[in-house]
């Protein structure tokens, strides 16, 4: 470590003011602070916030919290491939297959996002921080493993540029950057990201009777095919019947199903949530209220009488484990920049995300999944929620002050 530090220190004069690569100072600074603790500390005098969490540590905690999802996702890509082609493989075979598919996507997302970030940092002279490590890992996790790499690059560049850098970089974006990347691909190349088959085939044929569709796609198509049945078990039966019982509640919860790389496992998302909540990085209020909102909306749809579409009757707890709801609630909705900032606002914000997710799933035949658009929409409305929460608080305190 000492020797690495010496190498860096030797280069320092080149990058400081008046040095040869003065313009690239922030690149140097980024590499230095990635590797070592910055030397400056707050001076002992004066008013200051004392907290172990700074932006760096916060972002790295999120990255660590994503690792369970990532590792499970890599394995699951392999697992789904082996199931779909009817072959038998060991744990490491599956993991290796998944890694070959997933690692390039991550590298491309990091390289393209990082390039944009560095260019902006140099031109606009702002430091590079770990935010892009989070975004660059979130983006692969919400893509299907079959996504073409150039689309990953395009979406990442678009999202980092338009959703983040034009607003001034980290901490100033309005929309969640990773969700913007996905939404961009979703509307620009719908066939690649909302297609029927979510399993990497690699030229091998699927076994007979296997479909690579996600649980949400099956639920939507069953619901559309039997518009006037009022059976509560139609969808759960269809899910259980598909692919030899692959979509049992247990499998949906554990994540042994086709889907985007990191989103399938509710369990892994909850582990990530536990890490982030225990470190004080993510707001438990948002996560909890997203689940609550989705669950209550599911129940309300169950109770609506005379609605003849079977999707309405899907047991509410299925909504919580299908698709990307858990992943979105834990990693997307809690984005500290684009979510609501006030405490009451967080409850409203999370609840409406859950509500809108289920509403879009059930009511909107155009989109099988709702969490992406629900998060984006609530990102748009979060400042408004905050504004009115703050106003209400002001009025309350003013009243109290006047009453005395």
């Amino acid at each position: 470590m000492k020797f690495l530090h010496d190498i860096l220190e030797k280069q320092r004069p080149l990058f400081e003011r008046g040095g040869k690569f003065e313009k690239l100072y922030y690149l140097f600074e980024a590499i230095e602070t990635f590797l070592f603790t910055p030397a400056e500390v707050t001076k002992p005098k004066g008013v200051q916030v004392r907290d172990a969490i700074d932006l760096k540590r916060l972002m790295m905690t999120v990255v660590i919290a994503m690792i369970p999802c990532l590792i499970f996702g890599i394995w699951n890509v392999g697992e789904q491939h082996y199931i779909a082609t009817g072959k038998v493989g060991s744990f490491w075979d599956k993991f290796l297959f998944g890694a070959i598919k997933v690692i390039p996507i991550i590298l491309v997302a990091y390289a393209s996002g990082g390039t944009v970030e560095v260019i902006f940092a140099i031109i606009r002279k702002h430091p590079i921080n770990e935010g892009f490590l989070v975004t660059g890992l979130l983006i692969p996790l919400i893509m299907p493993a079959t996504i073409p790499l150039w689309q990953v690059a395009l979406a990442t560049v678009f999202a980092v540029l338009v959703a983040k850098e034009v607003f001034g970089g980290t901490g100033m974006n309005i929309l969640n950057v990773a969700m913007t990347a996905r939404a961009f691909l979703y509307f620009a190349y719908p066939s690649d990201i909302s297609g029927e088959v979510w399993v990497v085939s690699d030229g091998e044929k699927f076994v007979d009777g296997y479909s690579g569709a996600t649980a949400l796609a099956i639920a939507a198509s069953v619901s559309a095919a039997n518009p006037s049945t009022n059976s509560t078990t139609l969808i759960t039966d269809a899910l259980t019947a598909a692919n030899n019982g692959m979509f049992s509640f247990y499998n949906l919860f554990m994540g042994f199903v086709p889907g985007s790389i990191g989103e399938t496992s509710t369990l892994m998302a909850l582990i990530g949530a536990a890490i982030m909540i225990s470190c004080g990085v993510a707001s438990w209020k948002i996560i909890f209220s997203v689940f609550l909102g989705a669950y209550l909306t599911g129940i309300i749809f169950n109770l609506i009488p005379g609605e003849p579409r079977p999707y309405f009757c899907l047991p509410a707890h299925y909504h919580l484990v299908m698709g990307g709801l858990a992943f979105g609630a834990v990693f997307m909705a809690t984005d500290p920049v684009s979510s609501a900032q006030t405490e009451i606002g967080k409850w409203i914000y999370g609840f409406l995300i859950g509500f809108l997710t289920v509403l879009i799933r059930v009511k909107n035949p155009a989109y099988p999944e709702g969490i992406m658009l629900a998060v984006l929409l609530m990102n748009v409305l979060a400042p408004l929620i905050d504004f009115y929460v703050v106003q209400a608080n002001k009025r309350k305190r003013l009243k109290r002050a006047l009453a005395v």
Partner: protein
Amino acid sequence: MELLIRSTFVDNMIFAYFLGMCSYLAVSKKVNTALGLGLAVVFVLTLTVPLNWLINEYVLRPGALSWISPDFATVDLSFLTFIVFIAVISGFVQLIEMVIERFSPALYAALGIFLPLIAVNCSILGASLFMIGRSYDFGNSIIFGFGSGLGWLLAIVALAAIREKMKYSNVPAPLRGLGITFILVGLMSLGFLGFMGMKI
């Protein structure tokens, strides 16, 4: 009810049709001013759409005048549609302008030129024309006018809240002001795409 939700969220005037952009972009710097203008738009829309419906039904559309006498059954005054609608809208805007000036001079000053400009706000004329194009009945035209206004109100206060928050953002100098707002509105409509195609 269905129509109300549809016209507020699914067919949002701003995010689905990009109508009424000029005052939308100009008066969205503060939430309270935006709210004032938004309420004015709701009011004007709720009253003008049904009024224009009546005018269209009984005066303007082909054969509308036959209630006076059967001789007029062949008269078609629909070439007057635009000018009559605009006249009705301007009348209402004048009315609301006087009301705001009387009861809230602060808001009147804050809205400035954009209050009379509601008269040429495309979303208001647009709503009247959509109402004819989609052949709503009288009840529906009230709901549609109200819903469209509500959608516009929601859009403008949401944008205003974001812009208040963005005061702390470090936007690149060439994009400050309208440039970033255009990008922002584009991104906001991305969020609203979730409603597109929703069956209510």
